[in-house]
């Protein structure tokens, strides 16, 4: 029995575990394939735990609020909030369209625009690691979600679906260090790429040095990355520096408050005129 007692083989066990980790990391770093199966299975299983804990937390909080608040007013307030959310999204689209129309006055062939089809989802959890900015939502492939679908909120762009399972999905927030979105300055139409910094702010890169930008400009999606539909608000330029003919250190304050996200909309189908791939629309 002593041979089987791992407490007497601590050194070897430690070595085996470390080697196992190194092999595991090497396999992932070398391969350029999609999502690892281990990640998908574990996330799928743990999403159910997150769903359950979110339901428990949600029901406790709801019970508390219902006890102290007037129920009728609360429900009315929820309906109004939903309407405002829909109107804000509509307003963003209209504003983007108006800007585009102003700069492209020669084009007379106007096309009718319809709102993108979306699926509402609740946030059921967040990244288990403080270094990554992801959230888990309670909708998955069974609800029509697919990888790389964009996720928005009434205030603006939230991120994209990176790992959909049957009943849940993992969403990479735009503020994650590895996140990026094609974007443009709403006023001057100067195009660039918005990048996450891992903190609460965003930055913008690949802007031409001659671009017309200033503090306070609104930054919206340009749609050319074929993930985010055109015209959705990303944030506002908070500060910028110009050095040696090009911009550096452009800080963007996101329009969305990522710390208080409770529900989001997943864009499952794009409206006509956007650059989202046709095979993603359903």
């Amino acid at each position: 029995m002593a041979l089987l007692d791992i407490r007497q083989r601590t050194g070897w066990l430690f070595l085996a575990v470390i080697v196992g980790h190194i092999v595991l990391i090497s396999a992932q770093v070398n391969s350029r394939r999609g999502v690892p199966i281990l990640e998908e299975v574990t996330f799928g299983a743990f999403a159910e735990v997150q769903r359950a804990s979110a339901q428990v937390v949600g029901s406790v909080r709801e019970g508390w609020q219902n006890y102290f608040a007037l129920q009728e007013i609360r429900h009315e307030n929820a309906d109004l909030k939903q309407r405002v959310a829909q109107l804000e999204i509509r307003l963003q689209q209209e504003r983007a369209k108006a800007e585009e129309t102003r700069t492209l006055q020669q084009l007379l062939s106007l096309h009718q625009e319809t709102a993108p089809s979306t699926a509402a989802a609740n946030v059921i959890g967040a990244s288990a690691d403080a270094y990554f900015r992801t959230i888990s939502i309670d909708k998955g492939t069974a609800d029509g979600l697919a990888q790389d679908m964009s996720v928005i909120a009434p205030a603006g762009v939230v991120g994209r679906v990176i790992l959909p399972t049957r009943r849940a999905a993992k969403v990479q927030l735009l503020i994650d260090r590895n996140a990026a979105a094609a974007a443009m300055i709403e006023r001057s139409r100067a195009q660039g790429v918005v990048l996450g910094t891992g903190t609460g702010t965003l930055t913008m890169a690949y802007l031409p040095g001659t671009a017309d930008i200033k503090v306070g400009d609104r930054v919206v999606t340009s749609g050319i990355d074929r993930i985010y539909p055109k015209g959705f608000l990303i944030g506002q330029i908070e500060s910028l520096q110009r050095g040696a003919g090009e911009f550096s250190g452009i800080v963007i304050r996101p329009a969305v408050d990522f710390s208080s996200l409770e529900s989001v909309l997943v864009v499952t189908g794009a409206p006509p005129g956007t650059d989202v791939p046709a095979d993603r629309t359903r």
Partner: protein
Amino acid sequence: MKIAGAVIALALALALQTTLTRFAVAGTGAVDVVLVAVVYVALTTGPVGGMLSGTVVGLIQDTLSSGVVGIGGLAKTLVGFLVGAFGQQFIVTATLPRLVMFVAATALHAVVFMGLYVALGLRVFESPWKAIASQALVNAVIGLISFAVIESLPGALERRRGRRGGRR
């Protein structure tokens, strides 16, 4: 009993971490409750318990995040093993030694975690020292409070039983 307690502590820490992280999304690396749980298990069970708990929860954390699976696992395995080994060799029951353990464990974890990402060319961390320092401090405070609460539980239960017996 010790194993059951460790499993419960780790599961609770994971659930808490995934529930609370989104509310503190603006502050980089504000707290790592899972690391606190690994250090707790390592100090109470020794190097094997610390190492195994670090491996398991580290890998789970990796798969729930969008990073490379194994980097967090490796960092937490190292921390669990070293803290467990240290706890076996020295007396770490007073507040100050425990505080030092939590701070050192957080620093070691951050160095291994970020170091591997940088060495593999996967990510860049710009001046992370402030974030590491704040995380070490918060982790230490949470760890010390957790130890105090867990250690006061048996005595509190005993006193409660005593009071009930006295009334009869």
